[in-house]
């Protein structure tokens, strides 16, 4: 899934650089990438979402 996310980031970077008229598409992919990162990290830490220390 990290591979997929980095591909999305690469595509978004290309759009920003070479196809600035596709700004809305680029931003939507960016948001999807951010949400995917949040989901994957949460899934990897789902047995203890918060740092495992004293509060």
């Amino acid at each position, binding site marked *: 899934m*990290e*591979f997929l996310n980095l591909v999305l*980031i690469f595509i978004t970077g290309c759009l920003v650089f070479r196809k600035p008229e596709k700004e809305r598409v680029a931003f939507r992919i960016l948001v999807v990438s951010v949400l995917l990162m949040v989901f994957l990290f949460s899934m*990897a830490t789902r047995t203890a979402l918060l740092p495992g*220390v004293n509060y």
Partner: protein
Amino acid sequence: MPTTQTPTKQNAVYTMLAVAVLALALVPVGGAVFVLGFIYGDSPCVMCWEQRVGMALVALIGLFVLRFGARPKYIGLSVLVGAWGVFMGLRHVGMHAARDIGQGFSAEILGAHTYTWSLFIFWICIVTMGLLLMMLQRGDAQVSPRGLRPIEKVAMLVFLVVIAGNVVQAFASTGPPPYMGQGDPVRFSFNPKHWVWSLEEWSNLLSFDRWSLRGRWAAEKPGLAGVSADPAGSPLANIPTLSIQEQRRLAIPLRGTITDIAYDAGSDRFLLTTQHGVYILDGSLQRLVRYTVVDPGYSVDLGNFAGAAFIGGNEVMALGENKSYVVLREDDEANADANFRYFLESFDTFKEVSRSRLAAVRARMMYTMSLAFDAAGRSVYTVTVPNSKSKRLVVSRFDRRDLTLSEEFMPGLKPEGEPGLRAKRSVDEFYVTGAAIENGRLYAISAAFSTLLTIDLATHEIVAAHAVSGLDHPTGIAIKGDQIYLACEDGRVVTVAKPVS
């Protein structure tokens, strides 16, 4: 006042942003893949991958600003990703920060492991965003795409090269969807024979009972509510019964309920603790010798006292459920004014010697409700109480001289003979709320099943167990001669004959 910056000033802001993007892309994101990954074979774990992706996203949002101007949605998203990155860093660092010195996970760089650097870098990102925002003025948000200057083009090209490198590493290390990163990744290699693609992180995704905010750190505070006092339910079979010989209620008013009791044969006196009170009574439990109420919130968080012990030299120790403690010395000439900071009542009877915490290993994730002093071994002992996350009966010994962990063991039963364990039961079910030591044996009273355990400190075995009939939630134990005194949650102090074993 101008509402927009001059082109020169505006260019300076964008130049600084381009340099920041270059630094972020080259050093942590690029260095991680080209140096650590491709040269040294380091592979990120699943959490490191997301932290790296987060840094790449912050850099990408920087490219959006370079291209389209400082629009609010880009600024807002960059702050959100930066804040999430700080959280990811805290979550990851939290797994390893409290380990012994020098320990960690994977590569250490300049004295810190990679996940710690990630926390620092995300924090720097947010600081940089704040500084750049301060330099922006109204009108700086572009409506149409900006033309790119050379340094901005370089930033974009470098970013794309770095991300391309990461795409290659991610394919080799984590594989195509639905494969994803691993908790313990395999060393990076360009040779497909060494690639390991895993679905382990997807397992039990829909088992929502496994989702938790704090995991094993979400242990409940100790307490006797719901603890069964019925000896018939004991995990031990066929144990003898002790009968209560005498019971009394103290005539002395106490601040709170009795949480532990101890006895000092040398001075023929008892020590009692309440939630925050420390009381010394005479040997008949009828006359109050001295007392104080400790301020539990000053400095170390003491919580509620659950253990008490005479520890020699006119000193007593009161232990909180969280294994934080205070050591007090009896002092008839104590300075009441100086003691104002330590105590809430009776300021001139004790001097505070120290206030700190006992640190355990096996007992780390469990509270304790007992404390005992072994004069012969110059040690203090604690025994754990189980919680919903950790269920182990652990005895911890701390050297009296520095109150540092010196031994820990999990008492077991003798391989054969009495007491015997019922099928599918465990001694970890006991809920020890009081402990006392005599002649190398630790007497532990369990509120669960109202059972007195006798543990040999040399062999670490439970050599005897006795049910105590009529007992209701004991909170402490003291040994005086051939009598065992048990303090109870309901305010009674009962005595039983010390078993001969």
